[in-house]
């Protein structure tokens, strides 16, 4: 079998650099700037769509713009206006997009269908209507003017972006930033606690409406560049990616805008360099890459960070179990291989885990090893004693205040003893002042 090369021609580095630095042809500069601005606006507005849990409503909205485009084209052509005039098409798109959102709300209010079904129904039925309209508009017998460009709205055609459209994208970016700044408090209120917003007198419906209007604006602006199927990605992916890096709303908004712009920028550069690359898809894949990096590498919420913390905790607990055992045996802390094997069996450690635990203890200078026996260092012994004391205190507390039978406390205490904070220990000590350490 003759496998064709995946990428027809690999561009030279100089060309890549030129496009990146906007020194290439005026067209590609226009496209790159335009999509970056669009990505910025979409990222900022997408934050609110994400926090309001409207991600898929936005998807339905963008799919539902297709019938509007077709109707605007057909009606425009029939009235003798240029059917492909951009303001006309985008106005049509906005109308059916808004209609779709209203339809979802109406289905939710008047039937027992759930939100998922309502979104799926509206998305697919509106899109079906758009497909019918498209096949009607593209038949030259039906409509006099050519509908060749209409199909481009589905997958987008960023390369067709013109200079004045870049200004439009710039205006959109400024609008979205202004809206985010001016309405930050209102949007945050509605996103995080709409019930509270309602009882404190905010007009939640109105605020939702403004939010939706901004989404419609971004969607309609993005139709031409990335297409209506993928515009959802520009709205949702940057905020979701930014969410991994921060817990603060203003930072989230700024970051989502920046990541959106980055995705649009790199995506447009890539697609302008290689032939046969649909810009929309490349932009979405670039954002997808940004998302993947964020999900894996973000310092506190990222997958690696979470796993590392989890492993560190488990390792600490394992270490403490071993130290605790050594102290409990009262032999001034020495352990034989057999002891370690017994702990491993009891805790379900593999031989590998046991070795890791020992290694970690030695590197922390809490044990020393002489031949086959293992002895605790003073710091190791102190820690073991502390864990033992925590264990005893918590056991006492459970028996005395939580009415747990003395024969049932040991196992649950084994989990808790490692995570008691210093304040809690101090409190327990004063609470149980009469009690000296030891088993109940």
């Amino acid at each position: 079998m003759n496998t064709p090369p995946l990428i027809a021609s690999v561009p030279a580095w100089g060309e890549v650099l030129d496009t990146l630095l906007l020194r290439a042809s005026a067209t590609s500069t226009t496209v790159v700037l335009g999509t970056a601005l669009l990505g910025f606006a979409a990222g900022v507005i997408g934050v609110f769509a994400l926090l309001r849990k409207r991600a898929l409503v936005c998807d339905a909205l963008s799919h539902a713009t297709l019938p509007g485009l077709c109707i605007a084209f057909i009606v425009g052509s029939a009235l003798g206006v240029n059917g492909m005039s951009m303001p006309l098409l985008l106005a049509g798109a906005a109308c059916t997009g808004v209609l779709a959102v209203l339809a979802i709300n109406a289905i939710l209010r008047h039937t027992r269908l759930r939100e998922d079904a309502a979104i799926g129904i509206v998305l697919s039925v509106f899109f079906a209507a758009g497909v019918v309209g498209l096949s009607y508009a593209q038949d030259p017998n039906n409509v006099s003017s050519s509908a060749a460009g209409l199909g481009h709205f589905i997958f987008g055609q960023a390369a067709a972006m013109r200079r004045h459209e870049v200004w439009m994208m710039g205006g959109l970016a400024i609008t979205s930033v202004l809206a985010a700044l001016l309405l930050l408090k209102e949007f945050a209120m509605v996103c995080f606690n709409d019930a509270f917003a309602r009882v404190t007198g905010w007009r939640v419906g109105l605020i939702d409406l403004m939010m939706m209007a901004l989404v419609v604006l971004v969607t309609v602006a993005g139709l031409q560049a990335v297409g209506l199927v993928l515009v959802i990605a520009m709205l949702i992916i940057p905020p979701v990616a930014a969410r991994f890096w921060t817990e603060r709303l203003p930072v989230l908004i700024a970051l989502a805008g920046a990541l959106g712009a980055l995705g649009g920028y790199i995506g447009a550069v890539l697609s302008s360099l290689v032939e046969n690359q649909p810009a929309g898809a490349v932009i979405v894949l670039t954002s997808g890459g940004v998302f993947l990096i964020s999900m894996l590498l973000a310092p506190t919420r990222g997958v690696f960070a979470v796993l590392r913390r989890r492993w560190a905790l488990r390792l600490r607990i394992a270490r403490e179990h071993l130290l605790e055992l050594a102290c409990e045996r009262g032999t001034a802390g020495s352990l034989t291989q057999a002891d370690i094997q017994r702990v491993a069996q009891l805790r379900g450690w593999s031989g590998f885990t046991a070795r890791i635990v020992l290694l970690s203890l030695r590197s922390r200078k809490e044990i020393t090893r002489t031949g086959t026996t293992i002895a605790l260092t003073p710091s190791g012994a102190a820690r073991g004693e502390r864990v033992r004391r925590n264990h005893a205190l918590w056991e006492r507390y459970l028996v005395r205040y939580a009415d747990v039978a003395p024969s049932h406390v040991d196992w649950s205490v084994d989990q808790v003893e490692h995570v008691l904070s210093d304040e809690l220990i101090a409190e327990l000590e004063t609470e149980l002042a009469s009690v000296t350490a030891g088993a109940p």
Partner: protein
Amino acid sequence: MTFSIPVDLFPLSAAVLASIACALLGNFLVLRRMSLMGDAISHSVLPGLVIAFMIASSRSPLVMFLGAAIAGALTVVLVEVVKRLGRVEPGAAMGVVFSVLFALGVLLIEQSRSSGVDLDASCVLHGQLETLVWWSADAPNSLAGLWSSDTLRAVPRQVWTLLVMAALSLVFVVGFFKEMRIASFDPALATTQGFSAGGMHYALMLFVAGATVAAFEAVGSILVIAMLICPGATARLLTDRLSTQIVWSVAIAIASALLGYFGATMIPGWFDRAPVNAAGTMGVTSGVLLVATIFASPSHGVIARMLRRTAMARTVALEDLLASLYRAREAGEQGVPIDSVPTRVCKRARARGFVERANGSITLTPTGEAEAATLVRRHRLWEHYLVDRAGFAPDHVHAPAEILEHTGLGPETGPETDPHGRIIP
């Protein structure tokens, strides 16, 4: 309506079979609130299809199915991973996963097109139902002519695939009906009954991916969503029984396929226009049927509910009038002035012979008296019950009893007086 076998037979059977397969599975998607998983899968099987196609460079249904099944399973797993590991809200997780996979599919299609592979991004969206015509020249023109072995040989691959998929879905839904029902309504119970609810979940997802792929060539990836969700959702508004719902959904699916298919040629034909995209009209038809059901469903429809509410309001108004007349008589008044009563309520009461009018006031007739007595009896029994058994304060029971009196029948025997000391008739 014209039906020509060479042109219409195969597209129509493809449409009907695809609708049936999707509708059967869609019932469970709607029920389990996973409609959007169907949406996500139908978007993201695209890269699976294209990659399978590029590797095998054939459109063999098995290879395509394999590619799509892998992509479908990957979608389900990825959404789970993003949701769990990234702690992302489910809708957004789905949006991220399927839009990225769909973008990958679009990119791959564009790449493969440059290398001469015959796949087209736009047929991904609207399908190619119209290309399924019976190409051979000796295609029969009458139904009688179909009874020959040539017919079997002429059936296009897509129709066979859809036939198999519809049959498999039917076997799955009928054969595992009990398991799917329990797993959908009560996953924990399913697990205690000894079969895995998670397993059923993945089996359903696999079938959805399969049906999506089979239907995708005929109607396109986004319109598959309409076929999956609309019939099940429509049937859900017609009945409360799952088995009945499934039967309804299949009937609705067949109806949308037939009406949509013929609508695509017929309606433009009235205006001397060329046919429009049949897959699109099928989607629109299923939407129209859904809207019609939302309004006209006898059990859950907007109109039925409105009528029930109006009937209830009339009954309540009439009963309130009778009760107030009864109380007036108890208080020793001779009737109630007629202009203190809404004319329509008064008219209805007179038509049923409950009240009569004399000297500008209305009074109860003997039948009206009996009716009013049972009503006031119910009111006072409720008051008694609320104070005696439900621990209400005597001065707080009138309002709830005023509502409750219109429902239920009181017992034959009971206490003599209500909490306010009035006699219970």
